[in-house]
């Protein structure tokens, strides 16, 4: 069976199929399940895309190394957890250590991101945007390969998830919980919490701090911001650093999630997700990124449900819908759902 045949079948006797689909969908347990699934995926998507949104919004640089920073964050966070957590560590201590790992990885990767910006990207701002894509893509090749070397030397499989790091999650997060007749994992709810926290902190950073002001000003009109005395070069460095740090924070979260896990291919997966969410949301709007993350999460939950309840016999549907959404948004509203045309002059 192909993915197309069921659709053709459905066209033949559309009435009953649609009716049974609707009656299945309108069940309270199903709806709650879909909403919970959508929220947990959306939280991860926003986490992954937040850093890229800041960088792309201010600098117009489409950072291809974003996914690699996430992957690096996953491994670094996993390393911290594996070293610090022993079998005797209690669940709340594990949560505390998790936040510690997150803070440490954020610090390290922010410094690393700033260094990458200063050493590699700054020399090519005056060239075509193409070269920024090329350069960050080169960083992907080098970083992924370096991580692969380290992982292999440590005797682990770079392509499969890091089980040891997955195992450091406390038991109560790994268990399933029941919410209004629908089961979900404790971890997924924890992810929603982390996602909301990161959104709140980033929001605060953008609206309450001096650098947030610079970013918003620079996204509107970087030349004008410069003319008003903002050191835009320094702002670029800080933003690239913070964006990289956020990418790595997402990685630390994914390291605990069995649907992702720390692995080298995570780099590409995270990158594509970040691209889709940022482009759908629109250039230079953090709000757009959050809404786009929620939307893509909802698409994902609905299409996953369609597949699991055998309405569609095509396992790739959720992923495909994600990229179709990207293509459609670019066709219909290239500046994204919340973007304004020509913002940032890129």
């Amino acid at each position, binding site marked *: 069976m192909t*993915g197309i045949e069921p659709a053709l079948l459905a066209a033949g006797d559309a009435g009953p199929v649609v009716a049974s689909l609707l009656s299945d969908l309108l069940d309270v347990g199903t709806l709650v399940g879909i909403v919970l699934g959508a929220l947990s995926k959306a939280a991860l998507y926003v986490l992954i895309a937040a850093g890229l949104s800041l960088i792309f919004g201010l600098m117009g640089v*489409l950072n291809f190394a974003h996914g690699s920073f996430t992957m690096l964050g996953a491994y670094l966070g996993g390393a911290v957890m594996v070293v610090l957590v022993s079998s005797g560590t209690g669940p709340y201590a594990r949560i505390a250590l998790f936040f510690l790992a997150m803070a440490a990885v954020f610090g390290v990767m922010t410094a690393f991101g700033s260094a990458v910006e200063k050493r*590699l990207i700054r020399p090519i701002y005056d060239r075509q945007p193409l070269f920024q894509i090329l*350069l960050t893509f080169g*960083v992907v*090749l*080098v970083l992924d390969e370096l991580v692969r*070397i380290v992982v292999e030397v440590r005797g682990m499989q770079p392509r499969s998830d890091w089980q040891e790091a997955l195992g450091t999650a406390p038991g109560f997060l790994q268990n399933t919980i029941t919410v209004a007749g629908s089961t979900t994992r404790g971890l997924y709810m924890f992810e929603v919490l982390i996602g909301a926290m990161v959104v709140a902190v980033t929001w605060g950073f953008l609206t309450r701090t001096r650098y947030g002001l610079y970013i918003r000003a620079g996204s509107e009109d970087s030349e004008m911001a410069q003319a008003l005395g903002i050191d835009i070069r320094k702002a670029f460095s800080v933003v690239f650093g913070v964006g990289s740090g956020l990418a790595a924070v997402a990685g630390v979260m994914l390291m605990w999630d069995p649907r992702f896990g720390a692995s080298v291919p995570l780099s590409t997966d995270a990158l594509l997700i970040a691209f889709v969410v940022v482009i759908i949301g629109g250039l230079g709007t953090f709000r757009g990124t959050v809404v786009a993350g929620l939307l893509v999460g909802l698409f994902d939950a609905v299409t996953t449900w369609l597949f699991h309840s055998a309405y569609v016999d095509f396992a790739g549907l959720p992923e495909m819908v994600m990229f179709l959404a990207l*293509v459609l948004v*670019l066709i219909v509203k290239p500046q994204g759902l919340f973007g304004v045309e020509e913002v940032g002059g890129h």
Partner: protein
Amino acid sequence: MAISDDRQSPDARSGDVTERPPAEEGEDPTSDVERGGEASADDAATAERSLRRTLSEHRVHAAVVVAMGLYPPLYQLLISTPLGAEFAVVLPPVRTMVAVLYVGLFAMSFDFISGYTGYLSFGHSLFYGTGAYLVVLAATGKLPGLSAGTPFMGLLLLGGILAALIALLVGTVSFRLTGVYFAMITLGFAEVAHVFIRNWDHVSPSPQDGANIGGDVGAFQIGVPGVDTLSVGIGRLVGDSYENLFGTGIEFNEAMVSFYAVGAVVLVSYFAMQRIVHSPFGRVMIAIRENEERARAIGYDTYRFKLVAFAISGFFAAVAGALFAGFRRSVGPSSTFDLFVTADALLAAIIGGFGTLAGALYGHLFHEFLGGILSTESHGLSRYLRENLPPDLLNAEVAGVPLLDVVNVLIDGRAELYLGLVFVLFVLYVPKGILGTIRDRIGGTAAEHLPGHVRKYFRDRR
């Protein structure tokens, strides 16, 4: 970007003669033929001159083709010398050279659209995959209306046309965007196809691993369809091989036969693209790259030019994909529709020279050359070192780590790391790539200006 100083092609030349700055042509004897404005006096003489000029313009092309043609026997010869093991480490084997040809063609098709019009086609693997999957699906009888016995040349053409049509569809909506947005939408289309092909169980029971062509299907024939004596079969194990060809005593194994057959298709494709790039159409492509608004202001319908260029590029990308499938006889999503397949073309085009067409092939040659030396296979450097260095040296410690571990970690299969580093260095310091830098130095395409420079060099030495 100043790679735009390509010279006019012979067909676009007549109106252009007077515009050429004579100083630049000083060292080029072929232009003496050209400079007589009264050349139209005698048709026969003009034709002869034009032919001679065309021939002289292609001396460098001819030299490259001859060098490539001589490579397989030379390789056989060198690895049978006493230094054979060392040569085997450095020189790519012939079967790798086949990959250089078809991936090189793919990289050239990528450069054709991205390097010449400036629109980065980040989803170019879409067309490569189309060509590759068409061949495998047709050969396994899974495409309705195409019998399993369809000639390979027909499949090449069909794949190309299908990809060109897809390119027209994709381009119609994509060329309204520019810059990173164009890169993103083409990437989006390719990823949709990637996800689809990874889950389409019509391909094989496990579509994520792709499909193979069984041994019951004969070798794919390149040549004149239906005429056995004018076609040869390609493929690593099933292709044709000739012992003692024409009584010369030279043995042609499967890889060598495939190399020449695939090489012929790549050569024809290259010249087709090279002609287009040097035609008035190509000048408009470059104008779009340099300043699209201005090109539009002059009166060119740039949208239509971009579309046609994209379709041509997609056509040759699919031909490359079909050659890949025909030679390897197995396809998988990760070797066709994947983002990293496009990345290979990108690497090749940047290292070889963005917007130089032929440079992409050299760029990929460099990739495979490095990959061969650093590979884990029997001819790789790490295997050679482990087998040929004395054990006590291998166990000697470098900064507390045995040398053997250093070799295993830093050399064994690490081509991607060094290639990534080379790529970053090229983007930063050699943005025009190998061929682009050479062109800057000699003031034009290598095909036209290199012979003059070589002659000048020898004349100065005398």
